[in-house]
């Protein structure tokens, strides 16, 4: 398959800067795959798995919410956090999941719902990616 330029950037670092043949990413509208020569495209992404396929095979990472941008220069993914499957701290993700669920089930903490929901989604994405890898 034809490779294209892919860049994944977080506020802390540039996570990936190189060539890929295909990525699969979760957007607000559902999972989409991007191949080379895609039309210019911008959308919001939600926490979920990210698959990157290049000539050496397929790798998986857990992605937090952000945006996806496809332009003539290549594909850019901006996310608040990204980890490769083997980098995920499963225990920490389980703890975060439990904490978020506690907040969601506690009606007195309604003002924290939005944040807890995002945290829960992030934790679930990490757990599912990590478990598949094990």
């Amino acid at each position: 398959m034809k490779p294209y330029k892919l860049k994944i950037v977080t506020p802390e670092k540039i996570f990936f800067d190189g060539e890929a043949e295909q990525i699969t990413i979760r957007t607000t509208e559902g999972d989409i795959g991007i191949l080379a020569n895609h039309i210019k495209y911008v959308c919001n992404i939600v926490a979920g798995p990210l698959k990157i396929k290049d000539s050496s095979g397929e790798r998986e990472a857990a992605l937090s919410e952000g945006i996806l941008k496809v332009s003539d220069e290549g594909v850019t993914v901006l996310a608040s956090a990204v980890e490769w499957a083997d980098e995920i701290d499963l225990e920490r993700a389980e703890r975060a999941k439990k904490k978020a669920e506690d907040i969601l089930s506690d009606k007195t903490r309604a003002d924290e719902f939005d944040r807890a929901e995002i945290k829960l989604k992030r934790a679930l994405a990490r757990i599912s990616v990590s478990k598949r890898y094990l």
Partner: protein
Amino acid sequence: MATANIKDVKRRIKSVENTMQITKAMELVATSKLRSAKERAVASQPYFNTLYETMCEIQSDRGFKSIYTKKEFLKTVLVVVLAGDRGLAGGFNHNVLKLAEEKIKSLKQDGRTVKVFPIGKKAVEYFEKRKYEIYSKEYQISENLTMSRAISLSKKVISGFRNGIYDKVELVYTTFVSTLVQNALSITVLPIESDDLKGNEQGSSADIDKAKKSALTLYEPSAEEVFDGLIPKYISGLLFCSIVDSYASEQAARRTAMESSSDNASEMIDSLSLLYNRARQAQITQELNEIVAGQMGNN
């Protein structure tokens, strides 16, 4: 001072030496902290730049309206002030707080209500003491702020804006120019001024061409929704960058201040040692004189 007490002078030398030890240590700590802060500031740049570019492109795309770009009659302004957690950083805290105070004063003269959102312990203390209307004191600690804290901080700022508690957000912080120069400045965060974005785009004609080309981009589900989803990320990115920037400035200011106080201390030790040696010499001379005079009396 010719008859200065040797003991006193010695004690003073000792105390200045102790102070110098502290200032030297603080200088070294600030130097190493500055290095990591600078690295963080550089690392956060690509993320923010791409975010900003995308936003400019959507903005220049079509004339759409978003809650974040509305320009209504501006009555209440939220001033977010970023300062340090600790003192002993030369003019760092003073400069940024002074600028914030001037800004608030001029806003008040224009008949606006001002709420202050201080970040960093020094800022909280300052505005509390002067009885300003404070929006929140949740973020007392500005040191080592993580991205997730920056996100919750920006959510707080955005929710107040969306709920109409205030209709303009200004940010006052210190930007790192070089190790010796840090500038306090203020910028408007919300509403997002489309003129501003376009003004920046006009910097080079290449940018305009790029903006025109992007008119064919597909936005899903819609440009408006992508834009509105982008804003919280933009604001948290902006806040994160400016906090990192301000932290680097604080360390640089502290380093410079501690460097000059170490220099002053060693200067002081030099002059005190001179005084000490002189007093010692005078004492010896006097003792010799006394012995000689005693001997002469005996003879």
